[in-house]
């Protein structure tokens, strides 16, 4: 049964889309925010995300448990992060070049191991219906919220709190802002960055598992449309704040839902253009918030892209 709710469908679809599409962005960008706050950029998260999607799906299918699949994705993501962190520690390694290599390596590896899992159907991650109070099915559909979305929001808040209120958080910020100061304090900068990259990798793996285990909810080679890369851009746009990363992801997810939403209410002209909305939005925001003469005050001082 469907109720005709007319143009109200557009904002509703955008809200639903924001919640559904944003989850992987939240995980990847919060993870990358942690990595970058420690002074390193991991561009390889796109590869990590795809491998997480594959490994999560495969393990979920084999064990018949989406949760074990999720854990496996996080584990493999962490391995990718550790690999990146370990190589970057070697002299004369550029983290950006290595990230690009890992991006391609991760995707390739995932396609190689993932061939047998394109057909089978794995169990899905559970969702919570927050739309029970409404009779309108569109509202109910928009408010079917996956547990990972809630976990992602909690994660963003927890990460922000951690950066301010814990020894680990302060240590990460010191390592990311001034390696000299960190060494003077007796902090092993490479170790901090290694584990920050590992945490970022694990979170990107979870983001990938969300793709294959909930939305769209299957494994194939086109599963990621560059979410891992866009999330890295989101971190810069969010000025390295995990909470802002969550907001930026929601905005991005909402913009992504604009195209399908307009199509559903009958706007047929140029809706492909609306599919590009999130990218146009990101570009526009980056241009609007950037400046040629002003220094980015919130950027971690040790990043190779801002140095």
């Amino acid at each position, binding site marked *: 049964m469907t109720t005709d709710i007319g143009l109200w469908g557009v904002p509703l679809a955008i809200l639903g889309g924001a919640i559904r599409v944003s989850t992987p962005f939240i995980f990847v960008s919060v993870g990358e925010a942690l990595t970058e706050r420690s002074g390193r950029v991991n561009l390889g998260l796109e590869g990590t995300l795809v491998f997480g999607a594959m490994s999560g799906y495969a393990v979920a299918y084999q064990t018949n448990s989406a949760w074990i699949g999720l854990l496996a994705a996080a584990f493999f993501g962490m391995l990718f992060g550790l690999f990146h962190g370990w190589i970057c520690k070697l002299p004369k390694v550029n983290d950006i070049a290595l990230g690009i290599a890992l991006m391609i390596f991760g995707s390739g590896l995932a396609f190689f191991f993932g061939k047998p899992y394109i057909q089978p159907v794995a169990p899905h991650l559970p969702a919570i219906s927050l739309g029970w109070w409404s009779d309108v099915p569109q509202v109910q559909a928009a408010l079917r919220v996956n547990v990972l979305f809630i976990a992602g929001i909690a994660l963003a808040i927890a990460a922000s709190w951690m950066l301010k209120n814990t020894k680990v958080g302060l240590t990460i910020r*010191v390592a990311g802002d001034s390696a000299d100061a960190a060494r003077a304090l007796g902090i092993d900068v490479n170790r901090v960055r290694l584990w920050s990259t590992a945490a970022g990798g694990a979170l990107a793996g979870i983001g990938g598992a969300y793709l294959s285990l909930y939305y769209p909810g299957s494994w194939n080679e086109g599963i990621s449309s560059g979410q891992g890369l866009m999330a890295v851009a989101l971190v810069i746009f969010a000025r390295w704040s995990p909470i802002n990363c969550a907001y930026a992801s929601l905005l991005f997810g909402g913009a992504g839902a604009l195209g399908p939403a307009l199509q559903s209410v009958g706007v047929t002209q140029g809706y492909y253009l609306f599919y590009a909305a999130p990218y146009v939005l990101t570009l526009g925001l980056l241009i609007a918030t950037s*400046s040629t003469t002003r220094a980015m*005050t919130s950027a971690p001082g040790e990043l190779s892209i801002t140095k």
Partner: protein
Amino acid sequence: MNHVLDKTPHPPTRALSLETLGMTMRFGNFTALRDVSIKVPAGSFHVLLGENGAGKSTLVKCIMGFYQPTSGQLTVDGREVEVAHPRAAHDLGLGMVYQHFTLVPSLTAAENLVISRADVPAKINWAREREALAAFMATMPFQVPLDVPVGRLAAGEKQKLELLKQLYLGRKFLILDEPTSVLTPSESDELLGMVRGLTTSGDLTCLMISHKFREVTAFADEVSVLRRGEYAGGGKVADLSTADMAAMMIGEKELVRSAKRVETSGNVVLEVKGAKAPDRSGFKTIEIGDLKVKAGEIVGIAGISGNGQMELMQMLAGQRPLDEGEIRVKDTPYKATRTEARKFNVRYLPEEPLKNACAPKMTVAENIFFRDFDARGGKNQFWLDTRRMMAEAARLVGEYKVKTASLASQIASLSGGNVQRAVLARELTGEVDLLVIANPCFGLDFSAVAEIRARIMAARNAGTAVLLISEDLDEILELSDRILVMSEGHIAYETPAASAEIGEIGKYMAGHH
């Protein structure tokens, strides 16, 4: 504060005494420190004087455990100690304030203090930490805002915070490495006065590295002078004159004196009118109302770093677009393109030349040839004339005494003074009508400084208009014909150098007027 001390093995509660005995440090064939013995009694304020490369840093690094001396002993409070690494020095109660800031810019003062402790709890209880910090601050003779990111504090505040940090960590012997190089005269006096107070009351012993005789005579008890890695003399400050100390520092060496000032009068070459541009952060505006530099005159711009001098340099060099106003050279609007710079003979010597005026990985010859590689006698050249380049470079390297292994060495492999000389050689060659300079002598040693200043003076005498932006007030006073003070993004004060008063200039530098 108490719980900090509880964790330290044997927390010293009073000022420590320290002595080095026959300290020698060799790096391969090079002896950086030879048989140096100094004695710093508890509660004294001791100054270590010496030129760049005299071994001061090596000595304090040996004390702090960064280096293991080749031979020699270190005694703290009468007991012989072995300092294997900086941590061990900290456990003994020795601390150091570095020339560059070791604070983390994006963290607040409170966060910086707490994270520097050895026993930070996994979860920081900010309410309790704040209380402890407030109690600690109450015992201190000076205050620093605790909740602002350190990057936004003024240099003087940062340096105070560095000092506070050492005291917060319970250090009782402090090494200060040129702590006032980034401060105004009044900020320096305030900071050193505080240190003086702490030493007099017996809470602290201080060993300070310095170049400034004024600070030595005003605050220190005793002085030790190093020259080329050896102890060159020392004693009670009361018994020594500045001339004595200078003689110990420099030894038997002839300095290049600045050439005599020749009477000149020329037309206005550079004129800045109502120029406005945003500063680095974008929150403030740099506004230069009226600035004129005439031929044959050096106009010095004094000011504490971060008051808009860097932005002014960028405006003049075309790196920072103007919102309003204009820059005119020889009464023509000037946008600092390569063509215009060539036409009007405008040359630049920016600060940190290796970063701002060189291609570090290209050779010395190529770097020296940057002004001329694409033109000869007003005609554009397509092919690089290597033979002319080598000849020119060889001539200039000889003339400016640039010490380099060969013309084909990377310029980044040269020492700071030689990079500065090479860039100066490039910028002063040919006809120069306007020379814009920023901090030309930063980090260079005595003789290099004297020589570079003489070159600038010679250019002035030959009729070049010189705009000198410098954080070194002595340099401004020595070279300038007119002195301008820049504060908070505008020119706050102007005086002819002949009748300049340091006190007045200092006041405007600090922004109090």
